[in-house]
């Protein structure tokens, strides 16, 4: 997962510094022109998909078993650039293009079909990267033949299993798959900077600044760029061509404390447009800032106490701590004859978190507060457009959950959140843009005082502020109640953090914080309060830290 993407105040993006790279820019523009000129041929892919999918819809039939009633096929065409550098030298530079096919097929009908029963995993297949209708059709033919046979068998097994069990009427009546109106959406390919020379230079030069920090034992700057376009056709007559551009820069640092604790730090920048990425100069500065912070942590004392009391999360830690609980808001239907599912939906219209908190999905919103929201997408992997705004939690009460076309009892219709999973070439329920807001807000300057007041109320000498979080805090400060002074500490773990922790929130900042992270290769944007104060969390020393003995040979000169 990702950590913060918070641009420091002086951080320049490439929007301001592109003129510095005129030659690279011109080179990349030349590429972009080429990419655009091939765009006209792209419908050839959809045409080939349409023809072969329809041939299979009518032609696939085994004896008495039913033919498929629904088929969709997605081709993901992607160019990839994967570069890594350490201390000024490349350690990886890989560029390639591939096409993967994702079939989906249902037998039976919308109400009762082969899904929500057993395993339906399908291994993605390489599709020809030549624009050959026959090549594309052959992949579709091979995929659909395989999954039709599995689906037909699964459907019969499901009917038999259902007949042998006393299943709740409401569960039985729930359709297996939601129908959707036909849709056509053809978007232009993304204009991306895939100039290998430019990014190699970027990675080398930015990684080189870490030579100044010999206490950083290992460091790398990695660039990953994916220019993906999804081509979709379904027998509901939905077809789309949608680009999913993705840029990622990843800084990884590793150091060790004098007492032998290993410390690592990861920083990611993830965006959909080149102009949003940090310029080289700005990123070099960031590398140094992060390196110095890690070195500060090297010298920080180890936590030596257990704590239960108010804890404030700031900056990157706010979206990360919220993200750690976001899957509770994903619909996961219980398969008919098996265990599983997400019971959070039974809390619909009940209080789930503090009444001060409201959570909205803005997946269909492209811009917010004058900023581009990178988690925006026009249509999900099942051909459903997400709402511009969907209230998930209203003043603490659960109203909606993120769903795809698999209905659940409380949320029977898709709200367009079955997103393309670029890591495994399938699809998963995932958010796009999430807005977490509070109606109990304070100026950022007042938030720390709120924390100290709350700690004082509990007769505590100190409280904690978490400013870096990835599953557990990696940047946490002990704050003295008496004078507000802060001390960076290490080795802390949060105990029992869960969605219930959001029930007892004392306040939030009135300033918004934007944060991008990546889930299965797709960007998710969080807009959250810049800080949030929890009434009570438990913090203890991490007993799983394994301290290493010092290096035997001296570090090389």
């Amino acid at each position, binding site marked *: 997962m990702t950590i913060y993407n918070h641009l420091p105040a002086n951080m320049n993006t490439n929007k301001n510094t592109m003129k510095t790279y005129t030659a690279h820019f011109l080179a990349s523009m030349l590429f972009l022109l080429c990419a655009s000129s091939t765009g006209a041929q792209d419908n050839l892919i959809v045409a080939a998909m349409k023809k*072969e999918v329809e041939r299979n819809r009518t032609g696939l039939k085994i004896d008495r078993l039913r033919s498929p009633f629904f088929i969709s096929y997605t081709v993901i065409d992607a160019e990839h650039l994967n570069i890594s550098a350490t201390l000024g030298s490349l350690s990886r530079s890989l560029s390639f293009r591939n096409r993967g096919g994702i079939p989906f097929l249902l037998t039976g009908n919308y109400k009762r079909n082969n899904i929500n029963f057993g395993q339906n995993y399908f291994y993605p297949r390489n599709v020809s990267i*030549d624009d050959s209708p026959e090549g594309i059709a052959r992949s579709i033919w091979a995929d659909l*033949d395989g999954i039709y046979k599995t689906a037909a068998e699964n459907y019969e097994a499901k009917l038999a299993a259902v007949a042998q069990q006393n299943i709740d009427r409401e569960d039985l009546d729930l359709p297996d798959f939601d129908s959707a109106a036909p849709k056509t959406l053809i978007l232009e390919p993304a204009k991306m900077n895939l100039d290998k020379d430019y990014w190699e230079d970027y990675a080398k030069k930015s990684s080189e600044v870490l030579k100044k920090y010999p206490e950083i034992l290992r460091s790398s700057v990695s660039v990953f760029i994916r220019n993906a376009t999804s081509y979709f056709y379904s027998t509901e007559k939905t077809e789309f061509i949608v680009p999913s551009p993705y840029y990622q820069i990843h800084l990884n640092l590793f150091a060790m404390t004098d007492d032998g604790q290993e410390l690592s730090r990861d920083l990611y920048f993830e965006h959909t447009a080149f102009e949003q990425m940090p310029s080289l100069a700005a990123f070099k500065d960031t590398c140094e800032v992060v390196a110095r912070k890690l070195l500060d942590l090297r010298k920080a004392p180890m936590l030596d106490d257990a704590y239960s009391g108010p804890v404030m999360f700031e900056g990157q830690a706010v979206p990360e701590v919220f993200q750690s609980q976001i899957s509770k808001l994903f619909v996961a239907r219980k398969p008919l004859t098996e265990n599983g599912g997400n019971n959070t939906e039974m809390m619909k219209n009940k209080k789930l978190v503090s009444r001060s908190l409201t959570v909205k999905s803005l997946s269909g919103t492209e811009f917010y507060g004058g900023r581009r929201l990178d988690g925006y997408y026009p249509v999900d992997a099942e051909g459903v457009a997400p709402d511009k705004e969907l209230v998930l939690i209203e003043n603490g009460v659960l109203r909606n959950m993120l769903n795809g076309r698999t209905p659940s009892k409380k949320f029977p219709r898709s709200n367009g959140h079955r997103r393309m999973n670029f890591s495994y070439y399938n699809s998963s329920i995932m958010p796009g843009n999430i807005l977490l807001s509070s109606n109990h807000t304070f100026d950022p300057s007042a938030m720390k005082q709120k924390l100290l007041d709350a700690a004082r109320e509990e007769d505590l000498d100190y409280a904690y502020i978490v400013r870096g979080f990835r599953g557990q805090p990696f940047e946490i400060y002990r704050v003295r109640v008496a004078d507000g002074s802060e001390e960076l500490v290490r080795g802390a773990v949060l105990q029992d953090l869960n969605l219930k922790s959001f029930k007892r929130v004392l306040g939030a900042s009135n300033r918004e914080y934007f944060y991008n992270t990546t889930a299965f290769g797709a960007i998710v944007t969080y807009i959250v309060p810049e800080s949030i104060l929890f009434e009570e969390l438990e913090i203890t020393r991490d007993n799983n830290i394994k301290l290493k003995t010092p290096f035997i*040979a001296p570090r*090389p000169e």
Partner: protein
Amino acid sequence: MKKVILLLLFASLAQITFSRDNLTNILKSEINRNFAPLKDRPVPAYYLAYRVQDIQTHNISASFGNLLYSVPRRQRLYNADIRVGSHEMDNTRELKGSFGGRRGYGQDNELPLDDNETAIKNTLWRNTDIQYKDAVKQFENVKANVAVKVASEDKSDDFSRESPEKYFEKPVGSFKDIGFDAAEWERKLKHYSDVFSANKDVYDGTSALTVEITRKYFVDTDGAEVAENACAFRLFVNASTTADDGMQLPLYKSYTASDIRDLPSDDEIMKDAEEMSRMISALRKAPVAESYSGPALMTAEAAGVFFHEIFGHRIEGARLKQEADAQTFKKKIGEYVLPRDISVVFDPQLKKYKGIPLNGSYVFDDEGIRGRRVEVVKNGILKSFLMSRTPIDGFPKSNGHGRAVITLDNVTRQSNMFIESDAPKTGSELRALLLEQVESENKSYGYLFDKVSGGFTTTGRYMPNAFNVAPLIVYRIYADGRPDELVRGVDLLGTPLSIFSQVAACGDDHGAFNGACGAESGSLPVSCISPTLFIKMIETQKKSKSQTQPPILERP
């Protein structure tokens, strides 16, 4: 073969002037710097080796005339071998009663692609420290294990003492320097795979090429320094179909060369692909063979796999030291283990045999030891074993067969294997022998195993010490003069000692099996040159098969 040996001798003389490149200098300097304090520790390191492989690959694949991918890649990976204790007993000794090996896949083993001294030295320093500490822990485990378990039957040292060699080859350079043009090969592969477009019986028809330039570096604290190149072109043409009963029927043809000029011409490859396409259709209609025991012929290529699996893995020295290994041939030095006319030689130095490029060639193994010719069997009598730097009783030295992929530890592995007979028979004589045997057993037919996909064997004691060879093309040869009949669906199986007692004659031909062998130290290129074999009694069983029907719709 003599001509090739002479050529190689000439090539060796050309390397007498020793030079060294920058990366070797960096490795040398860092190994010495790290070793100095480690050898003075309470548990001293007594040996340290660094291996680096700079690997350039280009993978291309096409299907039915369309390109699937074309991906170039370069990586520089390293591995270290650190030993604490002494040659007599060190951290690598097998822990009796434990199933764990030594180290698994290396971590953080990527080096910069250029010779950035700071970055390379940092990585080596950091990882050497980690590995030394792991080695010390492991050595303590070894000492405890030795104290509580029964004494080892094999009293040999854990690590051999060798004379270090220095060897340097000039870098090969880039793909362009070896005559590889990706665009041209993309066109060729599309062309080869397009052969299958005309045959609707072929459900999957592909061609694939892997081009690899590997520059291998080795330095150790004994003083060895090696910088050697390995180029490989591996071309595959594959086709498969599904019979009406669900049986998957794959066929393939592979071509291996270290020089692009040694790959066959387009015409030859196209001809092979067309033959494969015809065979696919024939196989779909071929009857399924039932279980059988009786006489069989095994063509040269199939015999190569047979010998590699059944014999080759059982003369790998390090394996014979393991208490859990069945050690089939360990105590049989000087005894007949094969028919008296058969000799078996391994020779990694040979790059070609009678014009056939060999896959298992190298100058130095992955322990910095020159790969030597080893006469394993002479006229049926077992003479020697393949050895890495892991000695066994009676074989204290390596003969250059310590091999591993860069991410794994070395073990003894095969190289180029040659099966020779001093009483070869012609093809018609072998056939006559087969039919004679068929008639003597009152059978109506014997088998011809023409082509195999590979095989596997287990050499341990816990499971039956058996082998399995997977034939792709098999014929029945009838005693009554009927035409040979193509059949499908058999696997060849057996146990090693009994099957060798049944090898009755060898042909005067030779064929190569060039493939990849997977074992503890990863997937490594190997070759086996063998004549056709006549085996008086083999055993087959029905091949496992899919229960899935053939595709419902015709291939687009």
